[in-house]
């Protein structure tokens, strides 16, 4: 029987970040990962580091994460490929631009200033390649992008250096109270710890079910594709509202195209099957928005398995049934940017019982 201060279930960016922040607080976490760290959504997402267009309930976590992204090399020992060139939400017509204006004004009233409305001229300055019919948009200038697998590995590596233990290829088979402790049954034996963090992503509902608090989690696999190298022509990450698109040119010239069209997925077999009809929709959107991309070649396409909640926002906070257990999952296809800050907040919550970062509205009790 092994013991730890905290058992973390799931080796995505959230589990690895929480492990690092717990270790930085002098606690001894054991992280259990059924495959290897970053095998799923954390390792293969589009890498967007975005505060833009977030649900109000997530904004505090997103902003605290952004502060950590800006010193990610100090935190993890690796720059994680992070580059800050902003995210631009492009309006495709005047009605969209009007709704963006309302949103930005609303955020101002609440004291959030990271989203900034831009007109046609500023849009053209930031994204010269965008099609002429777009009347403006919103920019979040501190946003950027990073290399997802590298980032997750960097958190994992630094967590281990600081005293965390990471068990890969190990599955959790049971979870039960044992006096003041939780007894975690795994394929590598029993582990006891007073605290447990459920960061199991697309599999987190199974852990919650063991605690008698089922959640309506949907397993999704958003598709991405990447082109061969093209001459540099765009700096910020570009996203759309009306149609599904995210668009980012990496430093090596390749362009990652995503936006949330889904593959079919089988979480029991770690398998996804791409849906080319939907990828064709993304291709058409790019064709219309960025004429320069028409001759580009698609060299790969893929999808990573993750969790989607009915309201599109994550489950973060204490269990509603089981003292000492905390949830950190369900990031609904936009959890990568939130990894650093949510891990820090979770470590604070686990270590002290409370947190200074507001997480109201993210609790699991909303699904009761």
């Amino acid at each position: 029987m092994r013991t730890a201060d905290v058992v973390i279930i799931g080796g995505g960016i959230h589990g690895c970040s929480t492990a690092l922040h717990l270790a930085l607080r002098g606690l001894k976490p054991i992280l259990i990962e059924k495959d290897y760290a970053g095998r799923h959504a954390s390792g293969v997402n589009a890498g967007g580091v975005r505060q833009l267009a977030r649900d109000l309930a997530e904004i505090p976590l997103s902003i605290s994460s952004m502060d950590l992204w800006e010193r990610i090399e100090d935190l993890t020992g690796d720059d994680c490929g992070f580059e800050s060139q902003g995210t631009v939400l492009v309006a495709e017509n005047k009605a969209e631009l009007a709704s963006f204006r309302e949103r930005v004004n609303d955020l101002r009233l609440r004291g959030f200033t990271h989203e900034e409305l831009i007109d046609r001229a500023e849009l053209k300055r930031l994204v010269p390649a965008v099609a002429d019919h777009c009347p403006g948009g919103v920019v979040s200038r501190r946003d950027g992008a990073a290399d997802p697998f590298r980032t997750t590995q960097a958190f994992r590596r630094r967590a281990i250096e600081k005293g965390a233990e990471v068990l890969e290829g190990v599955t959790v088979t049971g979870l039960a109270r044992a006096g003041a402790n939780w007894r975690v049954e795994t394929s590598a034996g029993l582990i006891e710890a007073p605290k447990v963090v459920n960061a199991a992503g697309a599999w987190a509902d199974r852990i919650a079910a063991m605690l008698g608090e089922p959640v309506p989690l949907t397993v999704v696999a958003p598709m991405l594709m990447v082109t061969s190298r093209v001459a540099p022509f765009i700096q910020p990450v570009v996203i759309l509202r009306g149609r599904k698109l995210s668009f980012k040119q990496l430093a090596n010239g390749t362009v990652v195209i995503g936006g949330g069209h889904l593959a079919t997925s089988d979480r029991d077999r770690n398998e996804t099957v791409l849906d080319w009809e939907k990828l064709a929709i993304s291709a058409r959107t790019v064709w219309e928005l960025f004429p320069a991309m028409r001759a580009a070649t698609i060299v790969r396409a893929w999808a990573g398995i993750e969790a989607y909640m009915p309201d599109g926002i994550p489950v973060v906070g204490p269990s509603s049934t089981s003292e000492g257990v905390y949830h950190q999952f369900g990031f609904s296809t936009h959890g990568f940017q939130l990894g650093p800050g949510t891990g820090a907040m979770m470590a604070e919550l686990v270590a002290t019982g409370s947190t200074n970062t507001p997480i109201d509205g993210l609790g699991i009790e909303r699904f009761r």
Partner: protein
Amino acid sequence: MKASDLAPAYDLVVIGGGPAGLAAAALAARAGLSTVLFDENPGVGGQIYRAIASSPVADRAVLGEDYWVGSDLAVEANASPALIVTGATVWSLDPSRVVGVSIAGQARLIQAGRVIIATGSLERPFPVPGWTLPGVMSAGGAQTLLKAQGLVPGGRTVMAGGGPLLWLLAAQILRAGGKLDAILDTTPRGNWLRALAHLPDFVLSPYFSKGLKLLREVRAKVRVIRIDRLQAVGDDRLREVVFGTGEGERRMPADLLLLHQGVVPNVNLAIAAGVAHAWNERQLCFEPVLDQDFETSVRGIAVAGDGAGIAGGTAAAERGRIAAIAAVRALKPEALVPDVQTVRQRLQRESMGRAFLDWLNRPADSFRQPEGETIVCRCEEVTARQVRDTADLGCEGPNQMKAFLRCGMGPCQGRLCGLTVTELIAAQRGTTPAEVGYYRLRPPVKPITLAELASLPIAEAERKAVER
């Protein structure tokens, strides 16, 4: 033929128009299956019978009678009701047998009742120092030029490597009036020990007399030197070939170095379709796991020809027929098909002697597992040292390696580095290639343009997207 002329669905889609694909399409179409064969080249034939209908090489003796056998297969397929589409690139196949194909810049998704993958083999990577220099090319590339355009190498030409195809190409070049300065034979002497046990079968096989004749023909005209080290040297292009023999290092000026150390199954499409693969220790490659009808772990998808494991062109055609008979039995049980046992017996005869050839020509570790600054992944310029060092750091498999080094992420999609990366990780971590596994591959298995993808009809998809 335009992509929009294709039917939305066929009973059988055959991918690849080499011997396996041609034989399969002809048999299935004759038995009444609606059959389409896609081949990405301008004409059918595959690599072994490349340009069979258009080769400018008029003297039949140059390419040899074994090449011209291919024209019977092509004629038979063309005469059958099968739709043969050349210039058609298949870039996707999923487990529900939806085939993504592009023809002249237009893409379509086709539903197949059954699929026979007949995408053949690739030359095994030959990562020696300097193999990326201009002036160094694969022997298979040289053979393509000869078959399709009647071109033979000019200038000082050295051939290096091993395996039956190396000797065949040497003979073809010589017959066509080309000249070879030397053949550097990399086959390890020790291979004879493992091969010897299979000699009796080999002697009885058709390979025996053909092989001996070929060796004699080539050796009479070209110096053959057995070597254990090889390096291509030059600044912006090949200047000389440096090699090691038992007696020390030697140098030979050269304008062209042709490399070849055997062929391995082209696994990209099958892996992307989710087909289970296993390591073949004798042939040192991954191959699909198949039943006796060449059906894979994914229902309704078969792999025939050298893609099912290297066995040569004649065996490929028989394998194609067996897979086609299974397809007909599954979709149209009442149709008349040839007796499968007879085909199996022919295949059995054809396979005799293979074990001997495999063991004899098994390339040495040093020619498969490079060291130091030798490039492993040509697309992303990743060296052997980088792969070995990253494996030492704890990287356990090729998929993590992709994330660390980007090896295998370029346009060739791992075709030129996959086996090398797997073997290097295994060597470095003291485990086996079977344990390490291969790249997880995804469609598109051939690059397609954004414009092609945008050309897919998506009315159906838009409807679904709104519903979701």
